[in-house]
């Protein structure tokens, strides 16, 4: 109560409050002091007759209601969203009930685990009936690139004048958002991407940025609020520091795909993840990732619209969606899992390749634990440590190793490790000649 510190309420107003509180109770009986307990008692009597019925109802719907639809205050398990600290079933305060905050929907909304699972389950059915899956999208380096205006390099200054109008967001791609002192460039193809993806997926944004930033970016990507309404999850919503988790996403794990350029944050959901090639437009963006050359902005260039990362991944998403509904879901509607489909499609990329690695990692390191080894296997390649007839590719950064020389002698492919990474990002086996070891060296 704000007013108690510096004001004194007159006696009359205190009486008034007590009076109306009593007045408003349903059957305000007798002169009980504790109105709350009075009501509970009254309800208990009402419910004696229906006790068995209501318990059955509890086990099915988890909503402890009597036959007339009223909620039983005593037996409520509070398995409903919590709003302003109150159970939304019975209206009682439930401060200590374990629940995740869904601040991205409403600042004062929380949901407990069981209720979350219930919502996910019932939502999944209607989602799949509508032939849709869920797609969680990262912002930075995936859908767009932002730089602080203070970090704009001399060679990029020209962009500030070229920025598109915030009055006409749908037709722009470069925005200066003074409120957050940011310059933001949308990734080429992103508008087409969102439009087409939204017909196959329910879209979420999930960023490690602050809520204020996330809200602005959502506005730039979705000025009409057709895709991301109430589905912008930001750092403020994360349940663990430096981690993203599907626990705050109102979607079942087996129906979710994730697009993100950062693998590490999704350690618990790697099977849902489609790793994106980073979009670095601004100079300040590439530096922390070790890019020393000129940025796209400084070169006055940009990623290709037609076959850039978003166009490529959209095709993959369409294939996954198609395979999910024609095969996975059609044959097993109750246990259909999009992660299986993702795995299957990924494993087609390098499916007939047999790889041997040569001096890609340090001597003594276990190859099976290496990221590239794992990536190649996920792409469907067979990886080996020893050479034999069936080996198709030797992967090396050095032409001088025995294995590299063997590859040349036997007219097998000798490729740089980036050949695997490229296949991973582009979802297609890349022409080996573009990844010869000499060409890429350094």
């Amino acid at each position: 109560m704000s007013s108690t510190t510096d004001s004194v309420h007159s006696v009359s107003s205190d009486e008034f409050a007590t009076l109306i509180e009593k007045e408003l109770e349903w059957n305000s009986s007798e002169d009980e002091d504790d109105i709350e307990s009075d009501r509970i008692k009254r309800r208990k009597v009402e419910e004696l007759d229906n006790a068995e019925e209501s318990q059955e109802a509890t086990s099915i719907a988890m909503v402890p209601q009597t036959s007339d639809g009223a909620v039983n205050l005593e037996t409520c398990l509070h398995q409903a969203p919590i709003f302003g600290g109150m159970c939304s079933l019975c209206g009682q305060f439930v401060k200590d009930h374990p629940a995740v905050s869904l601040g991205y929907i409403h600042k004062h909304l929380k949901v407990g685990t069981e209720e979350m699972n219930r919502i996910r389950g019932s939502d999944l059915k209607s989602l799949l009936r509508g032939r849709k899956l869920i797609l969680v999208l990262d912002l930075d380096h995936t859908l767009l690139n932002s730089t602080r205006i203070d970090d704009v390099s001399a060679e990029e200054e020209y962009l500030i004048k070229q920025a598109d109008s915030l009055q006409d967001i749908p037709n722009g791609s470069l925005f200066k958002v003074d409120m957050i002192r940011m310059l933001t460039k949308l990734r080429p193809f992103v508008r087409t991407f969102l439009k087409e993806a939204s017909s196959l997926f329910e879209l979420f944004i999930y960023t490690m940025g602050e809520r204020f930033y996330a809200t602005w970016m959502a506005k730039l990507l979705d000025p009409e609020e057709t895709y991301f309404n109430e589905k912008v999850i930001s750092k403020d919503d994360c349940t663990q520091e430096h981690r993203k988790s599907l626990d705050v996403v109102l979607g079942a794990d087996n129906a979710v795909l994730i697009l993100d350029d950062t693998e590490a944050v999704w350690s618990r959901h790697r099977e849902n993840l489609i790793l994106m090639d980073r979009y670095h437009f601004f100079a300040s963006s590439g530096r922390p990732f070790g890019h020393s050359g000129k940025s796209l902005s400084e070169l006055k260039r940009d990623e290709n619209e037609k076959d850039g990362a978003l166009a490529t991944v959209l095709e993959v998403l369409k294939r996954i969606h198609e395979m999910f509904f024609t095969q996975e879901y059609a044959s097993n509607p109750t246990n259909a899992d999009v992660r299986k489909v993702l795995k299957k499609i990924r494993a087609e990329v390098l499916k007939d390749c047999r790889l041997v690695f040569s001096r890609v990692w340090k001597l003594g390191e276990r190859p099976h634990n290496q990221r590239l080894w794992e990536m190649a296997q996920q792409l469907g390649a067979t990886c080996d440590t020893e050479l034999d007839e069936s080996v198709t590719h030797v992967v090396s950064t050095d032409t001088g190793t025995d294995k590299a020389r063997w590859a040349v002698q036997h007219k097998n492919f000798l490729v740089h490790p980036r050949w695997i990474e490229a296949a991973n990002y582009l979802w297609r086996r890349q022409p080996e000649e573009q990844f010869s070891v000499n060409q890429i060296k350094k």
Partner: protein
Amino acid sequence: MFFHIVLERNMQLHPRHFGPHLRDKLVAKLMKDVEGTCSGRHGFVVAITGVDNIGKGLIRDGTGFVTFPVKYQCVVFRPFKGEILEAVVTMVNKMGFFAEAGPVQIFVSNHLIPDDMEFQAGDVPNYTTSDGSVKIQKESEVRLKIIGTRVDATEIFCIGTIKDDFLGVINDPGASS
């Protein structure tokens, strides 16, 4: 529910305001301090309608500020459990819907929406009966019953239900479209 009540408050005033307009200064400060605030007991102070009495000022030791007891009339709004309210829907999602009645924010969980109304996702998410005759979406006006309230310093939260006779949509903006 609205009430017209008399409240009392001790107001502190800096001596620089003392003069022929002392009363006006006190009233202006009162309005600024009180209107739009909440108290758990009385609810949301909508407007001050009159000042009944300003008591004798008391000089505070050390500061020179003077404290005046002020008795004033005001309109307050406070929801009560069991009260029926009319509210405007502000947001609809798979968990239920949010609605507002003045300063009061209300959440109605889908558990307390009649079973024959089902959630429909899409551009305008809504709850609709199977025959399509009743629809709750953003901007709909609904009549609901309060089952829980919490009054904070500046905000009032309520849990509501429309799962009872004579509750639900009273004006559907989507009906004509």
